[in-house]
């Protein structure tokens, strides 16, 4: 056989092998989370709050599934992430438009630097800052504080994805809008942003899926709660925070995996949706 063909086949085999190697950890993770977590997934898991340690211990001793679920975490996560998203989307898109429009201005350079710095900030530091800014003045841990932390985390991702997507659009699209007598603002709202919808929506979903799993800043802002709480001024719970709490309670071990499974499924779905949107 020709040497070139042999080389080609070897390269091909090598690439396939390396690809498989990267897929193994992903499937191993999904497998173990599902295997360990599926046992606790039942109706109660979504509709009841977490039992106290004593009830869990008794159930485990009798070989039953732990009664109750993570309802307060689901409510808390929604109460924290939804307002954060609603606030971060307009500000993030606005910031992205600004960076795109005023590409070379000094303010854009400063803004871009700040955005990159926030993106690189360890989330625990963000937690401490929000503790100082929100929790201390309000004299209470609260879902609001959690939302503020999540908002700050999401902002740079949305700003950057909006800017990048706008930049990928052909420049003559904008010129075409302006030659029809559109103002900059109308061309942006009617042509550029709608054309960039796929990329921007992807950025938003990825930002949501990223913050939904954050735990460190939540320990410093929402503290935790054993009951469902709808008041954003009160301490609250979150699915990710519950995983951490279950880990610290020897009686709750199997709930760790069920909560992890829930989080994993949400994040995977958000990522798949993001992928679909980005392809338009």
């Amino acid at each position, binding site marked *: 056989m020709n040497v070139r063909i042999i080389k080609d086949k070897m390269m091909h085999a090598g690439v396939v092998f390396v690809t498989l190697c990267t897929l193994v950890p992903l499937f191993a993770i999904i497998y173990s989370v599902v295997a360990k977590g599926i046992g606790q997934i039942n109706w109660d898991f979504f509709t009841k709050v977490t039992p106290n340690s004593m009830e869990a211990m008794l159930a485990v001793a009798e070989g039953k599934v732990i009664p109750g679920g993570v309802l307060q975490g689901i409510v808390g996560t929604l109460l924290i992430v939804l307002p954060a998203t609603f606030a971060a989307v307009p500000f993030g898109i606005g910031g992205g438009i600004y960076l795109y429009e005023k590409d070379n201005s000094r303010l854009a350079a400063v803004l871009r630097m700040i955005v990159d710095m926030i993106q690189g900030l360890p989330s625990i530091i963000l937690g401490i800052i929000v503790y100082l800014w929100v929790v201390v003045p309000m004299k209470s841990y609260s879902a609001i504080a959690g939302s503020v932390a999540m908002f700050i985390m999401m902002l740079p991702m949305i700003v950057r994805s909006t800017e990048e997507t706008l930049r990928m659009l052909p420049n003559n699209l904008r010129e*075409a*809008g*302006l030659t*029809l*007598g559109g103002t900059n603002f109308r061309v942006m709202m*009617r*042509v550029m942003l709608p054309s960039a919808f796929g990329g921007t929506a992807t950025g938003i979903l990825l930002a949501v899926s990223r913050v939904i799993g954050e735990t460190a800043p939540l320990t410093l802002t929402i503290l935790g709660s054993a009951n469902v709480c709808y008041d954003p001024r009160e301490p609250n719970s979150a699915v990710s925070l519950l995983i951490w709490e279950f880990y610290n309670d020897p009686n709750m071990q199997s709930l760790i995996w069920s909560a992890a499974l829930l989080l994993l499924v949400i994040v995977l779905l958000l990522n798949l949706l993001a992928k679909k949107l980005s392809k338009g």
Partner: protein
Amino acid sequence: MNQYPIMKIKNLSVEYAKGKPAVKNINAEIMNHTVTAIIGPSGCGKSTLLRAMNRIHELYDNINVTGEILLDEENIFRKSPIIVRRKIGMVFQRPNPFPNMSIYENVLSGYTLNGIKLKKSTKNEIVQTNLESVGLWDEVKESLQKKGTFLSGGQQQRLCIARALALRPQVLLMDEPTSALDPIATKKIEELILQLKNRVTIVVVTHNMQQATRLADSSMFMYLGELIEYLPTYELFNNPKNKKTQDYISGNFS
């Protein structure tokens, strides 16, 4: 038809950087209801000149323009660029229908972008008339709600012309409108240009000298930012006064 100069270019210079003009001291008059071609080698400033005519060059910083361009005796640099661009439409090298809009919405986009609200019946009429005048109506009347980007390149370019015509401009600027199209699509666009000059004055930048001879009533030859010669097309190609024009049209440099 009663002909008069609809556009007058007076002492126009365009500088991208201080002291480095891309277009130098141009003086020319463009007659209404004619097709004027701008030819010349790459980098001679023909696109720059065209883009100054509807002030689209203002999108980019640090571009300095001196001189005047008069449209119906009014200096366009003294008017709102929005009004200027409504009266002076533009078609680009690559067809660029708005990807977020249907064919129907693309034709009306000039009105949408100007914030003009129209009745449904007026909209339908504008869409039909303008698609008809670019010869696209029969091809797309069943699929008006499809995205404009589904059309072939030549159809997309005709859609872009319809979109520009919908605003009833006085002048239509075309920047190498067929250089991204195949010969058949090119032929259709050229036929269209000849039909349209009854309604609108057309200025077309082209790399293709045959195209200039086929389309243009008069032609400008530009070289290194200067307008070397501006004559009726037949004169320019058969009896050029300037040595540079002669060299260029006989293919001695490009």
